């Protein structure tokens, strides 16, 4: 009985990292999480503004922040793709 519970505790501890929400030590993962949070907030505010829950100020703020986040993500992605293509064009 004791051994079984010990084994279960060990298995639980080893399974813990797999269920972790997001890796906070990785800056890229952190930025992606922040981006997802901003976009989700924008969508939520837009929905509640349409049904009359949020005031227009909150809507404008959330949409501006979402726009900013999406522009940042797109610009960074374009830069990364550009660098990748630059490497592909390199004569070997």
């Amino acid at each position, binding site marked *: 009985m004791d051994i079984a519970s010990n084994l279960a505790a060990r298995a639980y501890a080893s399974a813990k990292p797999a269920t972790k929400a997001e890796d906070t030590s990785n800056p890229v993962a952190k930025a992606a999480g922040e981006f997802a949070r901003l976009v989700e907030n924008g969508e939520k505010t837009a929905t509640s503004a349409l049904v009359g829950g949020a*005031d227009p100020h909150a809507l404008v703020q959330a949409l*501006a922040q979402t726009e900013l986040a999406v522009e940042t993500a797109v610009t*960074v992605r374009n830069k990364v793709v550009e660098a990748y293509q630059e490497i592909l064009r390199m004569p070997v």
Partner: protein
Amino acid sequence: MNDLNKTLALATSGLRAQSARLRLVSENLANSDTPGYQRKIASFAQEMMNTQAVGEVRQGPVRLDQTTLPKVYDPSHPMADEKGYYDGSNVNLMVEIADAREAQRSYEANLKLFEQSRKMSASLLDILRR
């Protein structure tokens, strides 16, 4: 990016506070002929989070102007006393117009700040595009 995002939030709180103030001005104007109406005064307070100011502004409790109500002579009025006087409202149209104009100017200032922080972040991203 975090600072610019925060600026957007701060400017929005200012916009919201000023529009609440304009709403009170409008209530006062609408009730300028209501007997016994005391004019409402908007107040502002700092937004607190865990007993620490976060920089945002919010609408404080609404106060009532305690100046004495003017006596209006109208014996035919249903609320008139035996001498023919009833309590008017202490709304001063000139003061309300000045207050509305102040709310408008403050709103415009916050809008400008909102615009500027958007422009700044857009030009920051423009550097990456070249």
